[in-house]
């Protein structure tokens, strides 16, 4: 009996060694090659594509009811608003051909494109648009969108081709909200299971926990999709997805980390690198000592070496941010803020001494344990802080606990997390730090910041609004509101003969631009 057990132990050990040595072969792959678009050949029209995704579209396919980012990402190809975002964060005409804004900013008149057809064959009319706005305002689950639409007092069809929105107060970000109001046929009630929109792909079918199938909209108003058929294959987790990629049964997958990409064979796949579109930082609770002291916060900024974090956790991939705006926000992003706090241990120590902590202090970093990149970053931060005498410890919690205790309850000292934007408005990233905002988890309270944000929200002139938001973002950096780290790298892998993937400043995958090459 006992001999058997010992034998089993040896066998287990031998098996482990065998498995591991087999894995060792992959080491030679090294870092994946970056985007190889330069070598792309002739664009092919047509073809079928399988995209691997690691979550089902379980919430709802209804344009105003869907909540999960994974669902929005798929249906971005099916639905369209009057305008839609492009890869630079601008809004380009979609169902509407053009629009006119009144001088006081209280009225917008959209002219519809002639002969835009829904996937069911019907032509889009002004009535469909009005009904879509009404349904959206009444039923949307996006609270920011609902709030924005509540300032739209009237939506009316001027004639068959023109729709006018009347606002009670000017809203500089109105277009980004208009882009979120997807246009669907008036009176059509089955969007939750069989969505009908005007996008480059039309919905064919969905099998629960299995797949979602889209096909090319041949009557698309603009430059349509290249691919004929698109299958989103659902995997229960990223491990299963990675196995499918390894086996070659999936053509493309997004939102991978460098470690996952490293396990793939570079002979079959190429990698495109973008950003996750979020602001990862060490967020500090300003109501808890010693983080109520600006000098202490600045000392932390000097003590943390962001370059080293990127090098250690992601082989140098990732983009430094410097404030609560990530680079994909283009016109709102101020690159000069990135270097505001260069790594400087001596300066950090000096600031700590001035603040009354010559020997450092003890602090806790709360981090949700399901997000490996945040845990890894926090681990590096602990090491870096030790060099200036700050003794930090990690407190790893479940995602649910993080949401209830840390985020809603604000019971924390510091936390590493990433904040993203639900829409392409600076407000989506900056509003949360206004002292009265209920999402202000760090209890940031700065009168100058509040004032700048208030002015920005009421500014009608585009350039003036952008300037004000930039000043607000700069204020965050000056007061060392948080220790800003990076926008994480996002890797998309696809078969060698695919091309055309475009990154957006939002969490979407634009499949209309993806194509095969010869």
């Amino acid at each position, binding site marked *: 009996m006992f001999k058997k057990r*010992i034998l089993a*132990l040896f066998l287990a050990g031998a098996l482990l060694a065998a498995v591991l040595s087999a894995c060792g072969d*992959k080491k030679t792959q090294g870092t994946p090659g970056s985007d190889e678009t330069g070598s792309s050949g002739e664009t092919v029209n047509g073809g079928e594509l399988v995209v691997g995704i690691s979550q089902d579209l379980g919430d709802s396919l209804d344009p105003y009811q869907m909540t999960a980012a994974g669902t929005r990402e798929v249906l971005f190809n099916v639905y369209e608003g009057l305008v839609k975002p492009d890869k630079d964060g601008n809004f380009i005409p979609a169902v509407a051909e053009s629009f006119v804004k009144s001088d006081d900013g209280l009225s917008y008149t959209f002219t519809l494109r002639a002969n835009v057809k829904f996937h069911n064959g019907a032509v889009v009319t002004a009535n469909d648009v009005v009904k879509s706005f009404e349904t959206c305002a009444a039923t949307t689950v996006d609270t920011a969108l609902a709030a924005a639409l509540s300032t739209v007092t009237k939506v009316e069809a001027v004639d068959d081709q023109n729709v006018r929105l009347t606002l009670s107060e000017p809203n500089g970000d109105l277009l980004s909200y208009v882009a979120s109001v997807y246009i669907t046929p008036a009176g059509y009630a089955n969007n939750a299971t069989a969505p009908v929109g005007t996008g480059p792909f039309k919905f064919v079918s969905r099998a629960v926990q299995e797949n979602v199938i889209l096909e090319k909209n041949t009557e698309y108003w603009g430059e349509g999709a290249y691919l004929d058929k698109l299958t989103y294959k659902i995997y229960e987790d990223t491990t299963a997805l990675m196995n499918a990629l390894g086996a070659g049964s999936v053509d493309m997958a997004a939102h991978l980390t460098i470690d996952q990409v490293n396990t793939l064979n570079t002979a079959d796949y190429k990698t495109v690198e973008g950003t996750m579109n979020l602001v990862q930082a060490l967020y500090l609770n300003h109501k808890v000592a010693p983080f109520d002291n600006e000098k202490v916060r600045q000392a932390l900024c000097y003590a943390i070496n962001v370059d080293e974090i990127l090098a250690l956790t992601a082989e140098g991939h990732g983009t430094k941010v410097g404030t609560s705006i990530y680079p994909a926000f283009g016109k709102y992003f101020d690159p000069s803020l990135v270097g505001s706090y260069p790594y400087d241990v001596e300066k950090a120590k000096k600031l700590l001494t001035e603040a009354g902590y010559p020997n450092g202090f003890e602090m806790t970093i709360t981090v949700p344990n399901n997000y490996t990149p945040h845990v890894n970053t926090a681990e*590096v931060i602990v090491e870096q802080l030790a060099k200036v005498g700050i003794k930090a410890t990690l407190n790893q919690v479940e995602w649910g606990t993080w949401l209830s205790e840390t985020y809603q309850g604000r019971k924390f000292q510091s936390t590493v997390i990433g904040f993203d934007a639900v829409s392409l408005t600076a407000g989506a990233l900056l509003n949360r730090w206004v002292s009265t905002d209920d999402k202000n988890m760090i209890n940031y309270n700065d009168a100058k910041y509040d004032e700048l944000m208030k002015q920005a929200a009421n500014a009608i002139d585009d350039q003036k609004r952008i300037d004000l938001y930039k000043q607000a973002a700069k204020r965050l950096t000056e007061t060392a509101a948080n220790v800003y780290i990076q926008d994480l790298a996002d890797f998309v892998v696809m078969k060698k003969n695919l091309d055309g993937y475009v990154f957006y400043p939002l969490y979407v995958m634009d499949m209309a631009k993806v194509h095969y090459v010869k």
Partner: protein
Amino acid sequence: MNRQIIKSPLHHKKNYFLSLGKGITGAMVVFILLGMVWQPYSPTAMDAMAKSQAPSLLHLCGTDNMGRDILSRIMEGAGTTFFIAACVVLIGFTIGTLIGCLTGYFGGLADVILMRVCDSITAFPSILLALVLVMLCGRGKYQIILILGILFIPSFARVVRGEVARQRSQNYTAAARLMGAGHFRIIFKHILPNLLPVLLPTLSIGFNNAVLAEASMSYVGVGVQKPELSLGGMLSEAQTYLGNAPWYALFTGLTIVLLILGFSMLGEGLSREES
């Protein structure tokens, strides 16, 4: 007579289990003690220039995904795992022996109730029970010691109770009673020393189970929390980097295997020595 003829050649045969077990365990203990006073590098010092390096003269077991020296990490982690296992066994052994002695000696209603409690604890898969207790007590090194310590009581209590009940009916116990010795004197002065042959193998197997239990709990993430190191936690970390740094999982797994193998053989050797 017959029995002795069969037994005698075995008796002269060298007890390989015991000597090998002593050797491996001794080496592991020296390794862990060494780790407490000296490590080649700081187990948490990161080096971006030395990420996921294969074993070399500079880093005997290679480096992990953040350029930390794996040998130093294993030294540190094995120390934590060893400490936890030792504490768990100490708690389980002390309380278990006490309960086993008292219930085995006195019997009666208390015996029935306590043994049924032990039955119900062992009826659940121990890892499941441990996970439930973690929900109540929280995570961390000392919580794990407490939880596993409590869960290990029944296994010791059961063995001790059976043996005490057997010893109680022996003549020497009756003799001691006749000489007027008190119950507790009989239990702790007369019976307990005679339990040693049974206790030593139980102890070593208990230690093994404790090492495995800590490793599996830390592996699933409810045991020792980062950045504190333990072998199980390191193994789960190493799993992510199997493709890039297989030596991380290999050496960590090997340490667990050696730790367990040594104590298994020691236990088996001890029980053979007795028979």
